[in-house]
């Protein structure tokens, strides 16, 4: 190493030391956040020392979910770059989605458009979709018009659009006008055939029919089905298979997404007959607390999912996929309970009869250890 380089290296080291001197030891940082948050904006803003402390805390938490909470709690302006950082890092988490919503609220479409041209664009499309905010539709649509664009991004855009009724309507229009590129047609079909807006779903079934079912013949009688030979190991594979998707909503021993009731011990509770019915007709008996709700906000946005917390002034709704959104009750225009289970009917059609039998076997082996 020559002298020049050495000097530069020393300077770099000094810079790093300087930066680390400004960071706050994690325990202290946590304590400061707890205390400042409890005091709230009014009391903190009235005391310059506390304001200074808040500034330090904000700098120290940049890029983390705590940063998002602080920006939200203290209604801080000009933090979009920091928020976007978290949104891109955690596109499918409550914190990332909350950060994205704050950026959308700041109404700086140019900032988002610029980011959509960057390397992290697919993650950005994902988190934009997870906001379930209809304002993202005009931001995302141009990407679908450019057939030469990167396929990963274009697919992410389709998934994102399918999360709002407005976006899904646009997708359907593109399909109708035969303007959907061949790279995104399949994913658009899969998404639109699974939306909760029944009119859209019905038209999608015609325009973009789902691939022929694995099993569109009537099932054999239940007694016969239950007598068939079965393989639990294969059943587990079926459970986590993308096209069947049990694991997308039900955890088994910590594996899968935490959305519907965990099934780690379901075999201790239900026999195969009851398990089969739960798959064939999920709406027959929805567990208390797992009913689906649709919530309309005063600004016209619509949320759909499970109510995971119904506090005095805040409602927390968990969407399919597990992202939790918290809304102020004063922002809610209307909420209505769906008569149907969030779990889609017709899952048996996504597998062969043998696979269904294997799946039942796998579920019935899930017992308390």
């Amino acid at each position, binding site marked *: 190493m020559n002298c020049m380089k050495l000097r530069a290296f020393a300077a770099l080291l000094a810079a790093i030391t300087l930066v680390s001197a400004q960071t706050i030891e994690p325990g202290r940082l946590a304590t400061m956040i707890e205390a400042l948050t409890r005091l709230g904006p009014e009391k903190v803003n009235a005391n310059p020392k506390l304001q200074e*402390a808040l500034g330090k805390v904000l700098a120290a938490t940049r890029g983390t979910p705590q940063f998002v909470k602080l920006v939200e709690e203290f209604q801080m302006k000009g933090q979009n770059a920091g928020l976007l950082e978290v949104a891109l890092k955690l596109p499918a988490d409550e914190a990332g989605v909350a950060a994205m919503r704050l950026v959308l609220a700041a109404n700086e479409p140019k900032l988002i458009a610029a980011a959509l041209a960057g390397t992290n664009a697919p993650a950005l499309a994902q988190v934009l979709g997870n906001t379930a905010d209809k304002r993202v539709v005009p931001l995302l649509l141009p990407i679908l018009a450019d057939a030469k664009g990167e396929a990963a991004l274009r697919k992410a855009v389709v998934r994102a659009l399918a999360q709002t009724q407005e976006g899904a309507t646009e997708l359907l229009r593109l399909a109708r006008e035969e303007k959907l590129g061949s790279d995104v047609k399949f994913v658009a079909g899969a998404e639109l055939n699974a939306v909760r807006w029944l009119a859209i779903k019905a038209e999608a079934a015609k325009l973009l029919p789902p691939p022929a079912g694995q099993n569109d013949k*009537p099932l054999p009688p239940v007694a016969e089905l239950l007598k068939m030979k079965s393989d639990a190991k294969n059943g587990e594979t079926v459970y986590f298979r993308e096209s069947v998707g049990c694991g997308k909503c039900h955890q088994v021993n910590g594996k899968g997404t935490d959305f519907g009731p965990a099934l780690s011990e379901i075999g201790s509770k239900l026999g195969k*007959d*009851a398990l089969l019915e739960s798959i*064939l007709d999920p709406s*027959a008996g929805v567990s208390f607390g797992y009913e689906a709700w649709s919530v309309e906000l005063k600004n016209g946005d619509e949320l759909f999912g499970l*109510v995971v917390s119904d506090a005095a002034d805040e409602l927390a709704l968990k969407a399919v996929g597990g992202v939790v959104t918290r809304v102020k009750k004063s922002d809610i225009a209307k909420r209505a309970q769906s008569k149907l289970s969030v779990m889609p009917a017709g899952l048996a059609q996504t597998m062969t009869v043998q696979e269904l039998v294997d799946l039942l076997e796998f579920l019935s082996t899930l017992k*308390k250890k």
Partner: protein
Amino acid sequence: MKHTLHAIALTALLAASALPVQAQHNRPTGRAAALEELKKMTVAEGLEVTLFASEPMVLNPACMDIDSRGRIWVAEGANYRKWSNPPIRPEGDRIVILEDTNGDGAADKATTFYQGLEINNALGLCVLGNKVIVSCSPNIFIFTDTDGDGKADKKEVLFTKTGQAQHDHSAHSFVFGPDGKLYWNFGNSGKAVHDKDGNPIKDRAGNIINDSRNPYRQGMVFRCNLDGSGMETLGWNFRNNYEVAVDSFGTLWQSDNDDDGNKGVRINYVMEYGNFGYTEELTGAGWSTGWNKAKAKGVSEDEKVSYQWHLFDPGVVPNLINTGQGSPTGICVYEGTLLTAFQNQVIHCDAGPRTVRAYPATRTGAGYKATIKDLLTSSDTWYRPADACTAPDGSLYIADWHDAGVGGHNMADRSVTNMTGRIYRVAPKGHKSSVPKLDLNTAAGATAALQSPNLATRYLAWAALNTMQGKAEAELLTLWSGSDARQRARALHLLARIKGSEAKHIAAALKDTDADIRITGLRIARERGLDVIPFVKQFTNDDSAAVRRECAIALRHNTSPEAPKLWAQLALKHDGQDRWYLEALGISADKNEVACFAAWQAAVGDKWNTAAGRDIVWRSRAPQAATLIAKIVTDKETKAGEKARYLRALDFVPKSKEKDDALAAIALGAL
């Protein structure tokens, strides 16, 4: 317009999806099938299970009681949930009395006590002499058989607008307590209790009983007089506490269901007036908040449950034991002698893992610890125990809803013709059922009946002895001087009701060497409205933390100027570890926090900063506590995890200058 379209499409979809699975189950039914399936059952060692009744004699037993003649009363739930509209049994559900008239151990006679649509799927049945309390949300009915023919002649309502019809989380069974009172509960679709005319009810603590967080919420436990007066809210913030069981000391036991799939079913010792933490106290936030905290900390599955029940918040009473995934139903305390291995244990049905279990509990500090042991399980996946009751001869009866699922808004036997339901008897091998002869006309006969393991018998004995008053004193004193603590407690409850002698008998109990008897004495004193201050004074140094716990509860809402000082004395005895004791102190200080904390500070002086003292500070809701919390959090010796715990405690301290100053000191002190 959008919504109309939705609705039409929704209806179409519902109709279509419902079609292929409405087929009837094709399992064999009837007694022969039931006997075949009986072979799949496993019963605890030394015991045998026999079939007492099965379909078609009894269908879908939802709950059960046993009268003093050993007859089994069952409330059926054929018109369950969507099968109640239109009802698959148009004449309505039944309350049926099953009887074994020839002594062969199986029911041979069924009498319909009452049938009607208004009792569809009742979830509670309590036989009290010629009256029967039927819990069928939104109503609580009292039926009377005035002429003794086994048929209801009169129907009245005890409470109205309590709970949602056809909802498992609504009103459950009433149970007769040793104090001559009724105990009952509802889960979190219970919402409120109203009197027979539909008016809201104010409980003895002065609160309107509803779940609006003022202060009660979610599932609750109640005590009231036989006529429904004198309502008390004994515990709240449960999810679906299904039935409450009361032992002879007046101690309450319950199960509570988790949010399905979360492996969080719990058994509780219901410390009176406690908050049991299903939702977060301040905001009402649900389980996910606790779960997120647990996730952030990376705790184990087992520990996660404690976060979900908010057990790490000050003001939440601990759980007795966690039993994992389940769908808990009926519960009782077995105080018979026939099933020796289960004597004095809580017996509990869990329809999820398909088991009837016992939870032998022993006192530890101010609370209990318990273990789990199976009593009756089965490899039949339709076995769904719904209720357990003790017969006059000490045998245990189990009602089996018998279905592919646990209820939970669905059922697999969807027509009256193919519906199943079973009643089993569990007794020592070769036991022949019998019914002890009942003599309620003499003090000796009634005192003998009071010793029955069967609650309906005990009700009759209690009523007779309470009427006899002084004439029963000698017989009751004989029982009181015996060696069985539970029988002594039963005698004590009646001795303490002999007019003019109350104080004498309570005083004797308070001097007893058995802590459970001292506890019972304190409970009676409180219930009888005696001045508890002199009693508490006797016990501030009692060896038993459980007795001191009971003193703390007795001091709650006491307006005597001596109360804060006594509270401080009890607080000084905290060992810094016993959460039950700490929560009892919290319950005790309710609405009197400032005076209690001041009295404690005066007593402890500058020696407050010990493990026990910090606990008292953590649990207190007095503004003065905030100042000490700031000292603890800014102390270099305090560990990071501990700091978060104390900051959390500050959330429960009401808005005050002390609290703001404490927070500012902490925020700046950490820099």
